[in-house]
C-alpha cells in the first residue's frame, strides 16, 4: 500500500488487467489478511533503533486479497504493481456477486458499513435451502441471528408473496428469550434504527406471533407454564387419544430406532397395539375395557399388561424375552414424570392445544425451556413430524415453513439413530422441495449429523471454540477467518453462501424486538385476543370432527 492509504479486513477491492487482444479483465476480491512491518529491519529489536532515528526503515503495509470474481471469466493473474481501488457501489455489488442475485435478503452490514445480502435462491429451496449456524453459546448470538434472518425474510419483501405467506416455527430452548418477539424493544436507539433503515427494513417487532408453552406441572386446568410473558400464551399438549392414534410412543424413547437395541421391537408393537385398540373415552382412552385418564395410568397399564404372562404376547409379540420387556418397561416408567404434563387425559379435547403452523400466526414460538430433556425431544420430534407430514400431504412447497431449532447436536447427533433424528434428516434432505427450511443452530457442527450440515446451503459461524474451529466442518473458512472467528464479537457472524467464494463478515443490528422481559415495551393489542382464543366460547361442543349439522345455524 502506498503511504497514506490503508485497507482493513473485509474491504472489497477491484483492479483491472489489460489484455492485448480482448477487453480488460476486472478482478475483484476481499481483504482476508493485513500486515504491516518495517522494511529494512532484520531483527525484531531493530524497531528500537528505528524509533531512535538511527536505522533507516520504511513502514510497509500489505493486504492479502482473496479473489471473489473475475469478469469476464478469463483467469489471468492481476499484474504486479497494478493499481487497486477500494470498490464501492456497483463495483462492490459485482465483486460480492450481489448483482447476480435476483432476490437478495439483507442480513446485516459488512465491516465497511454497507449492507450485505443473502441470495434468496439458496434459502427458499429454489437452488438450495437450510441454514446451519455454529458458535459458542452466549457470545455467538446464534438465535439472535436466526431471528433477525427470519425478520429480514418476512419484512424485506424480497420473497414477494412467499415471504408474506411464509410461516416460522421457533423452538425456544433457553430462558424466555424468544417469547417477546412481538414486543417492541425499549432499548432501541437511534443508531440501531438507522442500521435498520440502511438495510431497508422497518425497525419493528414481529407483527404476528403465537406463543405456545407446556401446561404447568401438576395443574389440572392446563394453564401455560410461563413466568414472564403473561398474555397471549397458549398451552400445548396431546390428549391420550392423539398419543395412541398418531403413534407417538416411539418419540418417548431417544434411541427407539437403534437396531442394536432389542427393546425397540417392543416399542413398535406396543405402539401398534395402542393404535389398534385404544378408543376415546371422555378425554381419556379406553383399552381392553379399562378407562385410562392420564399418562401415568397408561404407563402403568402397559407395564402391567407386559409383565402378565397371559397378555404379554398380544402386546409385544411372541418371541420377546423378559429381559427385553423389562428394558422397555424401565424406560417407559422413567418417562412418566417428564411427559405426564404433556400427554393429558383430563383436559377438554375440543380446546385448541396442538401446534399447527398452518392455523397459527406467522411465527409460532414453542417454549421448551421449562421442560426436561426427554420432554423437549418428544415435543420437537412430534411437532416436526406432524408439520412435515402436513407438508407431504399438501404436496406443495408453499407456503414456506422455516423451522428454527437450537442445540441441533442434541436432536440430531452424529452417532446413533432416533425418530427425531430421522425427522430432521428427512427435512434436511427432502424439505427443500416441500418448502420446509431448517435453520439449525449448534455449538459444534462437528457433533451434528453430517448429512444435515452438508445439506445446508448457508453456513454461518459466530465465535468459535479454538478446538472446534480446527475441525473439517469449518473448511469453508479461510485460515485467517478461522482465526478471526475465535475472536468474533457478539453480533458478528461469518456467512458462507454457495455463490460467493469467500465467507462474508456480517454485523447484524441489535434486535428491534425485546429479547427479555426487562427490555420489552407494551405488548401489542393482538396478544389480548389470544387470551380469549385460549378457550373459544363460540366453538360447538364436539364440533371438531362432528357433523356439519351440529354447527350453529347462522
Amino acid at each position, binding site marked *: 500500500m502506498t503511504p497514506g492509504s490503508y485497507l482493513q479486513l473485509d474491504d472489497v477491492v477491484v483492479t483491472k488487467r489489460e489484455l492485448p487482444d480482448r477487453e480488460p479483465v476486472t478482478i475483484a476480491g476481499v481483504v482476508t489478511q493485513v500486515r504491516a512491518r518495517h522494511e*529494512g529491519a*532484520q*531483527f525484531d*529489536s*531493530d524497531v528500537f*533503533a*528505528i*524509533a*531512535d*532515528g*538511527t*536505522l*533507516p*526503515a520504511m513502514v510497509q503495509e500489505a493486504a492479502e486479497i482473496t479473489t471473489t470474481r473475475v469478469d469476464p471469466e478469463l483467469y489471468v493473474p492481476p499484474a504486479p504493481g497494478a493499481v487497486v481501488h477500494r470498490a464501492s457501489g456497483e463495483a462492490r455489488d459485482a465483486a460480492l456477486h450481489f448483482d447476480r442475485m435476483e432476490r437478495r435478503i439483507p442480513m446485516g452490514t459488512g465491516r465497511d458499513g454497507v449492507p450485505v445480502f443473502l441470495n434468496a435462491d439458496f434459502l427458499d429451496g429454489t437452488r438450495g435451502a437450510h441454514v446451519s449456524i455454529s458458535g459458542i453459546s452466549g457470545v455467538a448470538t446464534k438465535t439472535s441471528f436466526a431471528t433477525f434472518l427470519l425478520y429480514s425474510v418476512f419484512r424485506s419483501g424480497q420473497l414477494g408473496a412467499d415471504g408474506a405467506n411464509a410461516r416460522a416455527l421457533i423452538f425456544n430452548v433457553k430462558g424466555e428469550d424468544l417469547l417477546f418477539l412481538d414486543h417492541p424493544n425499549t432499548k432501541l436507539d437511534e443508531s440501531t434504527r438507522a442500521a435498520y433503515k440502511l438495510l431497508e427494513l422497518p425497525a419493528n417487532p414481529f407483527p404476528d406471533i403465537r406463543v405456545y408453552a407446556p401446561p404447568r406441572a401438576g395443574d389440572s386446568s392446563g394453564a401455560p407454564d410461563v413466568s414472564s410473558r403473561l398474555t397471549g400464551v397458549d398451552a400445548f399438549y396431546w390428549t391420550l387419544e392423539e398419543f395412541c392414534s398418531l403413534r407417538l410412543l416411539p418419540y418417548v424413547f431417544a434411541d427407539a430406532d437403534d437396531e442394536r437395541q432389542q427393546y425397540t421391537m417392543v416399542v413398535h408393537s406396543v405402539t401398534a397395539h395402542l393404535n389398534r385398540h385404544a378408543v376415546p373415552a371422555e378425554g381419556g382412552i379406553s383399552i381392553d375395557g379399562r378407562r385410562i385418564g392420564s399418562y401415568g395410568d397408561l404407563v402403568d397399564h402397559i407395564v402391567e399388561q407386559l409383565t402378565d404372562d397371559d397378555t404379554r404376547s398380544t402386546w409385544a409379540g411372541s418371541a420377546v424375552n423378559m429381559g427385553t420387556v423389562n428394558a422397555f418397561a424401565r424406560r417407559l416408567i422413567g418417562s412418566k414424570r417428564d411427559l405426564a404434563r404433556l400427554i393429558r387425559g383430563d383436559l377438554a379435547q375440543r380446546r385448541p392445544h396442538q401446534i399447527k403452523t398452518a392455523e397459527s400466526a406467522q411465527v409460532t414460538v414453542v417454549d421448551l425451556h421449562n421442560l426436561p430433556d426427554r420432554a423437549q425431544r418428544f415435543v420437537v420430534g412430534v411437532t416436526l413430524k406432524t408439520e412435515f407430514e402436513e407438508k407431504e400431504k399438501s404436496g406443495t412447497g408453499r407456503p414456506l415453513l422455516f423451522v428454527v431449532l437450537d442445540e441441533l447436536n442434541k436432536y440430531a447427533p452424529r452417532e446413533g439413530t432416533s425418530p427425531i433424528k430421522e425427522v430432521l434428516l428427512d427435512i434436511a434432505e427432502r424439505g427443500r422441495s416441500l418448502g420446509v427450511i431448517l435453520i439449525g443452530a449448534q455449538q459444534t457442527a462437528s457433533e451434528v449429523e453430517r448429512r444435515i450440515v452438508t445439506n445446508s446451503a448457508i453456513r454461518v459461524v459466530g465465535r468459535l471454540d479454538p478446538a472446534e474451529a480446527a475441525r473439517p466442518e469449518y473448511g469453508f473458512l479461510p485460515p485467517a477467518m478461522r482465526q478471526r472467528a475465535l475472536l468474533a464479537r457478539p453480533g458478528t457472524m461469518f456467512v458462507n453462501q454457495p455463490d460467493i467464494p469467500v465467507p462474508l463478515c456480517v454485523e447484524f443490528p441489535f434486535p428491534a424486538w425485546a429479547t427479555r422481559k426487562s427490555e420489552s415495551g407494551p405488548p401489542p393489542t393482538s396478544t389480548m385476543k389470544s387470551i380469549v382464543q385460549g378457550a373459544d366460547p363460540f366453538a360447538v361442543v364436539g364440533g371438531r370432527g362432528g357433523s356439519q349439522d351440529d354447527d350453529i345455524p347462522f
Partner: protein
Amino acid sequence: MDAWDPSYGASYEGADGGEGPASPSSAQVDTDVEIPAAEWAPIDVSPSVRRPDVVFLVDGVRRNDAGLWTAEEDGTSYAGLAASYAAGVVRCDLGRGQAELVGAKVGRGLFTASPTASDVQAGTVRYTVHRIEGAGEASKLPSAVQPSLTALEIDISSEARAVGSDGADLLVVDGPLRNRRQLPRTIGYVKTQQKQYLPGALTPVVTSLRPGQRTPVFHLGTVWGGWSWYLRLPGGSGAPWSGIVRVECSPDLAPDEAIELAELSSATLPRFASASYKDPRAPQNLVPIAGLERRLRTMLGDARFLHRALTKATALTR
C-alpha cells in the same frame, strides 16, 4: 577475541603477536595540535557539547554484475566489467527519532580499456561505457569502479545537504575522506586500522580509551592526510584495539574547527554503534550505515536478472 566475524578480517591488522596496527606509517605526525604529546590522555565528551540533531551518513555499495570480453576488429580482445554501484544518504533526525533515506542514486557502468566498446542496453537498464587507461587487465577493473562510486557519493551528499541543512548538522562519510574533503562539516570514518600513525609512546593512550572517549586530535602530513583522532565505540569485546575507529576531517580546516568536529564525533558516533549479535562487524559498522547498505543493495536490482539481461543483450549484438 576480536569482535568481528573472521570472514571480514580483523578490525585492525595486528603484527605477529603484537598489539595494534602493524605497519608503522611513514607519515609526518604532529601530535601537539590539541595538547602537547607529553600530556596526552583519553578525553571524555565535554558536557558543553551540543549534539547535532541531524546527522547525515553517506555510503556506497557496488557489485560486479558480469565479466565480459570484447571482440575487436583486429582479433584482439579486452576484458570488460559490468558493474552496478549505488550511493545513498541517510538523514538521522535524532530529535524527531526518524531515520530516512534522503537520496540514493544507482549507476551502472561497463568498465573496459577497449577503444571500440559502446554502451550496453540490457533490457530496461543501461550500462554506460567508462573507458579506462592502460592495458586494462581483468584484475585491475574492479578498482576502476571506485572513482565512479566516489563521484556518486559526493554528488549525493551535496544534494542531501542542499535540501535541509541547519548549519549544525554533521556528515559522516564511510571510509577515509580522500577527495571528499571539500564537503562542509564532514568527517571520514575509518573502521579498520592498518597503519600505525601514532608514535609508540602514545599507543597506550589509544588502548586505554574507555567507550565514548577519544584521543586528542593529531595531524597527518600525507597526501590524503588531515586532522585525525581515535575514538572507542561501546560494545567492543575488550581486546585492546576493539571498538577503536579513526575519524578524520579535512586538513583545510583550522585546528579549532577540527577539535570541534572531534568533540561532535565523540558525542554522536557511539550512539550509532551496532550490537555484536546483529552485525558481524560490530561495533564499528554503524547501524545507519548497515541499514543504508542493505537498502542500496536491494536498489542494485536482482543480480541473476541483470546477468540474464546482459547475456541476452550481448548475444544480440554479435
